[in-house]
């Protein structure tokens, strides 16, 4: 047993060395995601100047709807309406810049200093909040003037600001917070499909794998050492990516342990996919199109770079069941929203089902030669 363990370690160490010394594999599995992250990080898609404004209409009268209508005219306001609790939750989660509450006794004609309008502001980024407060104040005042012409003086700023602000503890999520979990998901997928499939198929084609058959050791040792080495390397890669992400301002709101569980499950899924492809294919020419066929749709439709909300409805419906979609949702859940394992139940269930499916396929398709 002790000698078997020693042998296993030797095979594990050899697997790690083989991977680290293979520049092509290293490039595609580690440097490519890093480069993509840097490029997208530099492009910085959050450069928009819109303010996400949640409105809670507690008055529900003509006056309040007229006000909302006028506010909608402002292009820099991105308005959504909802209940007080849900909107405040969105604010806490960093999905709203402000939440404006129109009180139940809101009426037209009240002087601007006495509107009772309260806007809850996120505390996460004070400098931005200041600018946002100014813009919102202007917009509300302007909207009031436009909604009830003549009822109040034309110069609301002189007589007093219509909105009082209250700050709410909340998260400020930037594009980097969205991007890094997606890149982590993509990296795990690429490691499984390209890091494993191509390396293993090459061993198969050249006959290096057959050479192992000439020894009395069961090739299962080698296979398990390969799987273990890729698991460890996957964690190392994810750690490096997240480390660099943090340097770029990435925030982590959840538990590292939950993140590790998700990454581990994701690695298992895509390692199984990789070994299924590698076990089925006779050479790289067979493996390449299949690996691309599997990875490309997920790369673009699983929400790696952009939110899936932007997708057409039917496409979103189909792609929500893809393994990488579950992985990305779970990763964002834990990193952006601090979700626990129980909150991520649906995603973990989806991943678990995929892990079983891919494992069965890998076992079925695997051929040593």
């Amino acid at each position, binding site marked *: 047993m002790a*000698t078997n363990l020693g042998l296993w370690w030797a095979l594990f160490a050899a697997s790690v060395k083989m991977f680290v010394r293979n520049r092509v594999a290293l490039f595609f599995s580690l440097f490519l995601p890093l480069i993509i992250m840097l490029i997208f990080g530099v492009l910085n898609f959050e450069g928009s100047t819109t303010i996400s404004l949640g409105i809670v209409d507690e008055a529900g009268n003509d006056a309040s709807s007229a006000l909302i209508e006028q506010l909608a005219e402002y292009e820099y306001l991105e308005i959504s309406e909802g209940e007080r609790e849900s909107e405040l939750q969105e604010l806490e989660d960093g999905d709203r810049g402000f939440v404006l509450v129109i009180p139940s006794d809101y009426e037209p004609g009240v002087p601007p200093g006495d509107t009772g309008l309260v806007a809850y502001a996120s505390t996460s980024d004070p400098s931005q909040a200041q600018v946002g407060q100014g813009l919102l104040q202007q917009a509300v005042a302007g909207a009031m003037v436009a909604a009830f012409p003549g009822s109040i003086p034309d110069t609301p700023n002189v007589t007093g600001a219509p909105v009082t602000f209250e700050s709410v503890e909340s998260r400020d999520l930037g594009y980097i917070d969205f991007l890094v979990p997606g890149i982590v998901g993509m990296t795990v997928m690429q490691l499984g499909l390209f890091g494993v499939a191509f390396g293993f198929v090459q061993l198969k084609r*050249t006959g*290096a794998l*057959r*050479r192992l058959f*000439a020894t*009395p050791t069961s090739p299962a040792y080698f296979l398990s050492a390969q799987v273990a080495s890729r698991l460890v390397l996957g964690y190392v890669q994810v750690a490096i990516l997240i480390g660099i992400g943090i340097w770029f301002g990435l925030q982590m709101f959840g538990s590292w342990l939950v993140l590790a569980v998700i990454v581990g499950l994701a690695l298992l899924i895509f390692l199984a996919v990789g070994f299924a492809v590698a076990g089925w294919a006779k050479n790289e020419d067979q493996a390449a199109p299949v690996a691309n066929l599997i990875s490309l749709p997920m790369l673009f439709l699983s929400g790696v770079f952009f939110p899936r909300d932007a997708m057409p409805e039917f496409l979103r419906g189909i792609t929500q069941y893809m393994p990488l979609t579950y992985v990305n949702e779970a990763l964002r859940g834990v990193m952006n929203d601090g979700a626990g394992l129980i909150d991520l139940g649906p995603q973990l269930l989806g991943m678990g089902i995929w892990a079983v499916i891919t494992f069965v396929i890998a076992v079925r398709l695997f051929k040593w030669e």
Partner: protein
Amino acid sequence: MTLPSAASPAAASSARAPIIVVTDLRKRYGDLVAVDGVSFEVAEGEVFGILGPNGAGKTTTLEMIEGMRPIDEGGAVIDGVDVRRDSREVKRRIGIQLQASAFFDELTLIELLDLFGRLYGRAVEPMELLAEVELTDKAKSQVRTLSGGQKQRFSIASALVNQPRVLFLDEPTTGLDPQARRHLWALVRTLKDRGHTVVLTTHYMEEAEELCDRVAIMDGGRIIALDTPQVLIDQLVGRGFTKARVERLANLEDVFIDLTGHELREED
């Protein structure tokens, strides 16, 4: 030598205890009969050659004996171990050089030999093994940097990690230049002198004549002739064969070696 007098060297070698006994070996792939009832014995310390055109079933025969490929019918016993019963034990006792000598490209020669030693549950001295095949200067290089001849020699070093009683070499000199081939011949003779039994396949008749105590000629999955090279030649001549052109005192390869020397070239 106190060997009993015998009619032929073949009889002399089979008088020693056979270390390989192959009986009526058969392998079929669908409609194709790859190996069709092959039987032979190899004596300990012998160099045994299997010759034949491509597709004759040489490699399949070898791989069944080595425990690398399931045997359909018949059997093979190596060093007293039945391959069909315990292929793992057979692998423990033999060394195998595969036709395509591929290894994990990113590992160095030392690392690979060390790893192969572990696969046999043995601690090895990589430098000693490399010295035997004259690759000590490449010890810390990765396999992918080796030339064809160096790869073949390394492949033999890797087949020696378990100090095997029988060594199987599948086309060890295919693709090598004349110098590298001669170099490998010398290595095989050294192994024989050390008491290893060697079974090899080859397409080069001069190689078989040079190295093998006995050869089996295969065609269509069967052994069609089996004896010492000299006896086979004598038999042919006995049947009234004469060469179209009388053998000269030297051939072109002798000229080539004379002009370019015995010294080994490496294409790196």
